[in-house]
């Protein structure tokens, strides 16, 4: 991508906890594979709440204030994908908010 605005990697919201579900370097490169694998395991195999769950990512990586992984280029999933020019459709359906954020704001959620 040649967009000059994207020259510097974005500063993303800090995650909860000390470690990701895999090594950070591995996550950076392969998180989509884990997610897609998990997706099939859950939907077809009925394995729920496992390590690579999408709902899990959101719980740890949500912004501390609004409890979301999308919303601005600082938000975890959005910021990096904007930088990498990747478009996701996951959040057409999946909530981008943590469980507690969903409970506290029972209103329309921005994509």
């Amino acid at each position, binding site marked *: 991508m040649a967009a000059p605005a994207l020259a510097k990697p974005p500063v993303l919201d800090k995650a*909860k906890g000390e470690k990701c579900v895999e090594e950070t370097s591995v996550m950076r490169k392969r998180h989509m594979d884990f997610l897609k694998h998990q997706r099939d395991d859950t*939907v077809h195999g009925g394995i729920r709440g496992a390590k690579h769950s999408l709902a899990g990512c959101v719980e740890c990586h949500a912004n501390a204030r609004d409890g979301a992984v999308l919303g601005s280029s600082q938000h975890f999933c959005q910021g990096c994908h904007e930088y990498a020019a990747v478009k996701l459709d996951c959040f057409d359906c999946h909530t981008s908010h943590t469980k507690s954020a969903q409970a506290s704001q029972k209103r329309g959620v921005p994509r």
Partner: protein
Amino acid sequence: MIPVDESRRKFLGTTAAAAGALALGPGVMLYSYAEAKAGSGAGERTIRWGMLVDTTKCASGCTACVDACNTEHNIAPAKLPTDVQWIRKVELKDERTGAVHSMPVMCQHCAEPPCVDVCPTGASFKRADGIVMVDRHTCIGCRYCMMACPYKARSFVHEPTTNKSSVAPRGKGCVESCTMCVHRVDKGGTPACVEACSDAGHRAIIFGDLNDPNSEIAKRVKAATTTQLRADLRTDNGVRYQGL
């Protein structure tokens, strides 16, 4: 650092224990049963989740099951032909005797589901435990399954969704239907409609493993005459009706 909170601690616990704990959960058993069957196989059984609706206990006008389903799956009560709905109450009157019945109709979780046969991408599928559902990651929204379903059990999401829930992700352009509350069943629970019916004091819907001879549902299906909707199609439904 962000302070560690309680929900996160709990969440970490779940994740860490995931492999171990879930090996005991029914979800994973889907696999172990399948393997056992393929292997030594002596006397192993496979699960087939089903429901039995007793129409003599189902109260006319009561919509507890429908309401519970709507709440569970984040569905607004259906008004228009384009609205999502997974379960509906049907009122019947016998044309000859005038006898009336009331009962819920939802996905019948057929053993030979026409929706699965026709789906071009295989998004419409049947789990090893007999639950029929749509994998909304591979559904292209052609609606052929809705053409094929004999029970009008499926809905197409006609509009973008705003209010999302982590239990029931939903987005425009895919087909969906009753999942028999897989997310509960996989954790050893019962479907929301069954629970609500019981809470309302009717106990008109029971849930269980049709293949387990000791389960209440299997015993009752064995003892009483039960009906499958459109039995003439031989789809071998997982949802049975009693008292029709």
